[in-house]
């Protein structure tokens, strides 16, 4: 079978060969424990970690000491949210977040709720963005944390981070930002944007899986957090556990490459994305881009193809790896909560496809995918009773879909 074209770079990315090369020695000859202070094996591992820390800090305009290594962004989000809530429990117990956050943030917030915290889940507009005025309005005496992602993983929409940072600063509230999708694609400057905690993942930026980082501000203000993992007191006591030296070296190298290639690479990928988007919009009717077109990552295209179910479309383009907000692809059989939060009708959420372009996609691939998607959408529409009805002028929203309108998929197991 021919190898598929990979356009799911929001899910993960391949390790850049330069990253792999940088990592390899740290699996074998340079195997030392970075915490070993008594011999050269440890010193060399520690030196490699120090260099990686500097590279990561440089990319986000932070100090190296402000980088805390973790097992990935899920852990970073957990540490930021639970760690701040625990450290500031005497000051307050209210957290502000947003409906379209990643599950690592939402489920951390739910955990806090179960422990007596109050959480405000702000809505987003039709464009997928949170309103900074609503953030400001949600702040109360007990608010200890605002956690809003930089860019959404499903629709690529970029929130007004600088404005939220200003609101947070003005009210003296700690601002955590999950920047997993944005880092390496758009400039992320924790000083300019007023971010106090920032979650980073290596495998979304052509680094290895299983390693990430949390930026923790040390000055103005000095952010305190309680660790969620106890042990040897590594990482300024915030994250115990022997450092994943090869992974950390990989994350550092990945950040260094992003820093050097970002403006050109983002421009190139945005041009490919726009080409794909424009082809699909001009060759198909009733195709819609989900979320803001203006405030969007350069590599993301989330579209709904009316009258075509997302999973069947993915099956039709089986040599192209993408993802869908269709219910059929989720364990819960519920369509994307992110698209629903934007007010995308549920049937259009079922019809959504996310194309995530990346460093290794070519123009030929984009051309191939463009033509293939158009061909398959047309084939599936020929097979779709909804497309038939719409062509005949039936307003689908007025149709009575009978008992099946609210059936519970899970109960039909006869």
């Amino acid at each position, binding site marked *: 079978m021919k190898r598929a074209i990979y356009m799911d770079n929001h899910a993960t990315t391949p390790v850049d060969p330069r990253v792999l090369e940088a990592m390899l020695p740290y699996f074998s000859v340079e195997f030392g424990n970075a915490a070993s202070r008594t011999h050269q094996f440890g010193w060399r591992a520690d030196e490699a970690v120090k260099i990686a820390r500097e590279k990561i800090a440089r990319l986000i305009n932070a100090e190296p000491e402000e980088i805390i290594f973790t097992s990935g962004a899920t852990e970073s989000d957990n540490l930021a949210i639970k760690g701040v809530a625990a450290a500031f429990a005497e000051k307050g117990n209210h957290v502000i977040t947003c409906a379209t956050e990643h599950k690592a943030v939402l489920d951390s917030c739910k955990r806090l709720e179960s422990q007596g915290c109050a959480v405000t889940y702000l809505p987003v507009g039709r464009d997928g963005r949170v309103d900074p005025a609503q953030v400001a309005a949600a702040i109360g005496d007990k608010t200890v944390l605002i956690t809003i992602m930089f860019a959404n993983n499903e629709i690529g929409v970029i929130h007004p981070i600088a404005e939220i940072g200003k609101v947070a600063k003005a009210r003296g509230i700690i601002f955590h930002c999950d920047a997993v999708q944005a880092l390496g694609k758009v400039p992320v400057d924790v000083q300019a944007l007023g971010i106090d905690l920032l979650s980073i993942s290596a495998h979304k930026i052509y680094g290895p899986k299983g390693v990430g980082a949390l930026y923790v501000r040390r000055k103005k203000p000095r952010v305190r957090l309680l660790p969620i993992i106890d042990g040897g007191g590594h990482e300024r006591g915030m994250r115990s556990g022997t450092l994943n030296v090869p992974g950390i070296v990989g994350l550092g190298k990945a950040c260094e490459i992003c820093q050097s290639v970002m403006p050109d690479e983002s421009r190139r990928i945005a041009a490919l994305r726009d080409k794909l988007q424009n082809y699909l919009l001009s060759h198909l009717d009733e195709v819609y881009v989900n979320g803001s077109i203006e405030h969007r990552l350069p590599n993301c295209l989330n579209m709904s193809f009316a*009258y*075509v*179910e997302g*999973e*069947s479309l993915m*099956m*039709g383009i089986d040599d192209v790896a993408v993802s869908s907000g*269709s*219910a*059929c692809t989720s*364990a819960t*059989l519920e*369509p994307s909560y992110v698209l629903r939060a934007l007010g995308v009708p*549920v*049937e259009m959420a*079922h019809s959504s496809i996310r194309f995530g372009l990346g460093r290794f996609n070519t123009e030929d691939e984009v051309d191939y995918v463009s033509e293939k998607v158009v061909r398959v959408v047309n084939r599936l529409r*020929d*097979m*779709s*009773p*909804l*497309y*038939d009805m719409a062509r005949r002028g039936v307003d*689908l929203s007025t149709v009575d*879909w*009978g008992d*099946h*309108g*609210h*059936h519970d*998929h*899970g109960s*039909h*197991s*006869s």
Partner: protein
Amino acid sequence: MYSPRVIELFQNPRNVGTFAEGEPNVGTGVVGSPACGDVMQLQIKVNDQGIIEDARFKTFGCGSAIASASLATEWLKGKTLEEARKIKNVEIAKELELPPIKIHCSVLAEDAIKNAIEDLIKRRGGSQPEAVAEAPAAETAGPSSGSGR
């Protein structure tokens, strides 16, 4: 994730389409809803002997839903209405090797068959032709006949 049979029927679905509107011997069943992510339309065309001589479908849904509807149309051809009524979702699910999360696709197909039959009977004024009601089960043909019902 998909069985070879589902992939084959998704790539080469049988009997896609609709019969011309107003044909007297056609029954139409439409089940599911856009909000649930699947809508199945299934039609049967019955001859004077009460035998389903042709069947068509259109489906908005995942590959398993498309394959279930396609398979149903194949199984329907040559059956009497009584025999068609006996097609069970478990047989479709078994033939297509549907995982638990996709069983509802086969349920939709079974429901679509039943709705199409009811629609046909309603259109004919509520009565079934004698030949249909008295067709002996032994004459059943098709893949579902050997499933041990």
